[in-house]
């Protein structure tokens, strides 16, 4: 109690310093005057009386200091003093302060922005969802292969239920399969994104609908038996104008009225990194949302993407082991469908089926890059502080001479560093806040909808940034402190007039900082060069089909309630109408457009005369394409013919294989005319196509084949080869579609080039990011080098003058200074090259057709660095060469 009382009264004492001084003066004065009066009465002279009174009182100044100390909290008072002094120092050197704070703001701002992206996109990507730290993504594997985005398979509903039944370490199994529907019918179809989810979805995620209810367990079962939907807050607000009576109303989804049973809370966007979901439907409605393919009872029909939540205390390894054991049992029990199928858990940031998996390598590189920038910025500010500390050498020496403890000086320097980094951290947070929503702007939008990839500045990010700020503050404080603690009082005071100063220790420290900066920038430059070369390599890779003059879009007939019969009739009619337009060369429907999100079908195949090895994977991807597909896409045929309209339901089944498949299964013989078995049906091969890229530019050449869409599942993707631009083509397309059905509209119309570019977006963002930060780093390093060089020259002007007086030529001096600068650069480059050799390996999966040790990237980084270094050193060297020996020596 007493302690608290004392603390409080001292705390208040902090704010009453003026009154304290007045009172103290008056009280002590009163005391001394009484004492003097007493002494005078005792017979002393007035001088003597005062002296004795003072002596008996003790040193007035010391007593006052002791009194002040007792009056408040000395720690805070000293801190307050240091803060005020620090601010004064910063105000006195505005140029220095602004430069230092700017450097640091860039460093801390960039780091915080990347922290916030990692937090909001990778670590805790689902706002409003409880226990994300225990959530993992679950995907299927086939013959042990999974992991790379696009390579994972899905799970079937019967398998999923078996996992759910048999895994004891897992709290909740959540199905979450993204799907889309066409909502508004106008000039352009407006897509709404939604998910087919298990009935436990909302309960397991801890999300409570603000109106109505979530799903009930029974809604998992019964083919198309539960046309109910929960809509997002956004959709409720925008489409239904926040209608409080929305529950129970019907909304047409994929041609079937669904009853709205709930509205999700504001700020819940579903569980798909990259896109905000607008509605959710239960598993029982799967058929409606997969273009009429009923998969709920088929163990061999994988379609489920999802999540699991581990029980508290269960490690991912334990859960993985348990699930793999169940998967092995399923392999035994159902060899026909499950042989070779496994299951794999992924941390959320490696989720293979949403954008987390694609963004993870990019954000890791971004994190490394901003850490480099931060280090460079710190080194730069450290150098600036060294220069300033040198200017303050006199101040420090005097302070030490009059008795300041070295600890006290250190405290002050640390406080100054802290002020700098705190201001910079505050500015950096502002910068990061602005950059929070920058990520989607770098990535392409789809159909006018930008991705939802917000950075999240929560307490974890704040703690990290504060840590960065504190560490940098300590660094700044210590750099000048290292040298001020070495001050030798006598020599420092004597050498006050200047002359041969700047001990070698300081020069080494400054040089060291420059070497670090140069090496870090060099690493960034190499990284940027590698990515640039890789991007060039990707963009120079031919996809194997025409990207210019080919447009792609879709017409969703299932959503409009068409059955297969009507859909086929419509597609033929539309194809005819479009083909008769001027400027349109050819038109073809297909199930999958290359490089899209929709996955290819894949099936085990058999070929006469080809024996499959026991452990060989005999499944091959294929696409269902309409007549004229190869002509439209510009995929050349090596031999045979492509599909015709006559290849219909009643005609013999036909297929086209690609050249890789032909080489593998027919071994040099022509496949045309022979048979191919797909899913138990024999088809006649009618043509061989050139190999092309199917999912992305980086993929390897692989076997692939095409079947006639007419004889298989119908598709909705529409490809048009035309000289019209996307806008003109959209107008014509809308006109023609409306002529057939006024209620239909096409989806987003884009060129195939755009379609391809969307898959390289991540690489381009990485290049942009490394380019910007690499340039920034180079600039910072050049400024640092320039600073050191000019400083060295100004400090050595006497030496330079002497050299000149002794006969050194201008070019001698120029060379002397330049060689010092270039030596520092060379040191940095060597260090940087060594670091880059080991670091660029980590970029492996961002690089395409480029070795991480690509000599061109290293060479150009070296050239750029050398030019920057020359530019930074030249002005100081030029100044050195123009030293006036007379003036320099007289100084």
């Amino acid at each position, binding site marked *: 109690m007493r302690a608290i009382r004392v603390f409080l009264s001292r705390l208040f004492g902090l704010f009453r310093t003026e009154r304290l001084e007045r009172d103290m003066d008056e009280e002590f004065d009163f005391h001394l005057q009484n004492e003097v009066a007493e002494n005078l009465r005792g017979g002393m002279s007035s001088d003597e009386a005062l002296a004795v009174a003072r002596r008996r009182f003790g040193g007035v100044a010391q007593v006052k200091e002791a*009194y002040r100390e007792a009056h408040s909290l000395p720690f805070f008072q000293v801190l307050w003093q240091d803060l005020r002094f620090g601010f004064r120092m910063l105000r006195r050197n505005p140029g220095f302060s602004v430069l230092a704070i700017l450097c640091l703001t860039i460093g801390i701002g960039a780091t915080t922005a990347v922290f916030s992206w990692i937090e909001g996109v990778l670590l805790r990507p689902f706002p409003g969802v409880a226990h994300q730290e225990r959530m993992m993504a679950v995907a299927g594997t086939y013959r042990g292969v999974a992991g790379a985005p696009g390579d994972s398979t899905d799970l079937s509903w019967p398998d999923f239920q078996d996992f759910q039944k048999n895994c004891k370490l897992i709290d909740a199994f959540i199905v979450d399969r993204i799907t889309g529907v066409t909502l508004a019918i106008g000039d352009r179809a407006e897509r709404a994104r939604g998910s087919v989810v298990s009935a436990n979805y909302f309960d397991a995620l801890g999300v409570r609908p603000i109106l109505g209810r979530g799903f009930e367990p029974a809604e998992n079962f019964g083919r198309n038996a539960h046309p109910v939907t929960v809509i997002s807050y956004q959709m409720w607000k925008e489409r239904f104008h926040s209608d409080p009576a929305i529950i129970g109303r019907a909304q047409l989804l994929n041609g079937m009225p669904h009853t709205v049973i709930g509205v999700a809370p504001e700020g819940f966007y579903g569980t798909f990194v990259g896109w905000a979901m607008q509605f959710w439907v239960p598993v029982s409605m799967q058929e409606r949302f997969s273009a009429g393919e009923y998969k709920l009872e088929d163990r061999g029909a994988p379609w489920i993407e999802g999540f699991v939540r581990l029980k508290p205390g269960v490690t991912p390894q334990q859960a993985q082991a348990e699930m793999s054991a169940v998967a092995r049992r399923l392999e035994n029990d159902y060899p026909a469908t499950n042989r070779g199928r496994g299951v794999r858990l992924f941390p959320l940031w490696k989720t293979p089926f949403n954008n987390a998996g694609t963004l993870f390598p990019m954000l890791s590189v971004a994190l490394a890059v901003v850490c480099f920038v931060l280090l460079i910025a710190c080194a730069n500010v450290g150098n600036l502080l060294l220069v300033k500390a040198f200017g303050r050498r006199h101040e420090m020496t005097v302070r030490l001479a009059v008795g300041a403890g070295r600890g006290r000086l250190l405290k002050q320097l640390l406080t100054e560093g802290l002020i700098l980094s705190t201001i910079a951290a505050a500015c950096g947070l502002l910068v990061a806040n602005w950059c929070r929503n920058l990520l989607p702007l770098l990535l392409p939008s789809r159909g006018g909808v930008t991705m939802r990839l917000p950075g999240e500045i929560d307490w974890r990010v704040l703690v990290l940034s504060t840590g960065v700020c504190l560490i940098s503050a300590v660094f700044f404080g210590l750099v000048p402190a290292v040298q001020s603690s070495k001050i030798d009082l006598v020599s420092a005071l004597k050498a006050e007039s200047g002359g041969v100063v700047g001990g070698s220790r300081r020069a080494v420290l400054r040089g060291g900082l420059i070497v670090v900066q140069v090496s870090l920038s060099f690493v960034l430059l190499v990284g940027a060069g590698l990515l640039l070369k890789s991007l060039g390599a990707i963009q120079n890779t031919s996809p194997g089909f025409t990207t210019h003059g080919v447009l792609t879009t879709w017409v969703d007939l299932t959503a409009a309630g068409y059955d297969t019969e009507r859909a086929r009739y419509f597609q033929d009619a539309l194809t005819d109408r479009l083909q008769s337009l001027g400027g349109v060369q050819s038109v073809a429907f297909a199930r999958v457009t290359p490089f899209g999100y929709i996955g290819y079908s894949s099936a085990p195949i058999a070929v006469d005369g080809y024996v499959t090895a026991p452990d060989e994977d005999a499944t091959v991807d294929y696409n269902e394409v309409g007549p004229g597909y190869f002509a439209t896409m510009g995929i050349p045929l090596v031999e045979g013919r492509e599909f015709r309209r006559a290849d219909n339901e009643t005609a013999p089944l036909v297929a086209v294989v690609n050249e890789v498949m032909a080489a593998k299964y027919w071994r040099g013989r022509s496949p045309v005319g022979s048979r191919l078995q797909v899913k138990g049906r024999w088809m006649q091969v009618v043509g061989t196509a050139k190999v092309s890229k199917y999912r992305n530019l980086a993929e390897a050449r692989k076997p692939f084949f095409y079947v006639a869409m007419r004889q298989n599942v119908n598709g909705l993707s529409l490809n048009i080869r035309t000289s019209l631009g996307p806008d003109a083509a959209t107008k014509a397309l809308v006109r023609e579609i409306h002529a057939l059905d006024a209620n239909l509209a096409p989806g987003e119309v884009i060129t195939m080039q755009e379609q391809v570019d969307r898959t390289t977006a991540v690489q381009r963002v990485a290049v942009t990011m490394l380019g910007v930060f690499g340039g920034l780093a180079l600039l910072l390093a050049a400024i640092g080098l320039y600073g050191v060089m000019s400083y060295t020259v100004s400090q050595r002007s006497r030496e330079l003058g002497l050299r000149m007086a002794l006969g050194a030529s201008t070019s001698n001096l120029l060379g002397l200074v330049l060689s010092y600068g270039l030596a520092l650069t060379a040191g940095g480059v060597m260090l940087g090259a060594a670091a880059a050799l080991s670091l660029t390996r980590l970029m492996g999966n961002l690089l395409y057709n480029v070795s991480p040790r690509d000599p061109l990237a290293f060479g150009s980084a070296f050239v750029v660095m050398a030019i920057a270094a020359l530019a930074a050193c030249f002005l100081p060297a030029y100044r050195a060469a123009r030293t006036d020996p007379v003036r320099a020596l007289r100084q």
Partner: protein
Amino acid sequence: MDNQKSDVLHGSLGLMVLRTLDTLGPQHGWGIARRIEQISGDALALNQGTLYPSLLRLEQMGWVASKWGTSDNNRRAKFYSITRAGKKQLLAEAKNWERISDILGRFLKPSKESA
């Protein structure tokens, strides 16, 4: 600064101050200093100034209250008086002090005899 030493000093000095205020009633700093010197004679070489931080601490503990008033010679002066908590503390401290000096006294006597 050597804290331990000054604390001991402040401890006993505080006790003297409390005792002085208890017997004389409200006093200004100089009056307290004079009184302590009178009682201790020349035995205590005290810097009068040290009294003031000590008074401040006693006030922060709530054992002493201060008030500005007018002195005998008509000048503004700060007067200190003992509070009720201060009186309690004085009683406790005095008892404690007697006990300690009693024990110490007993310790020191026999050692003199044996020498």
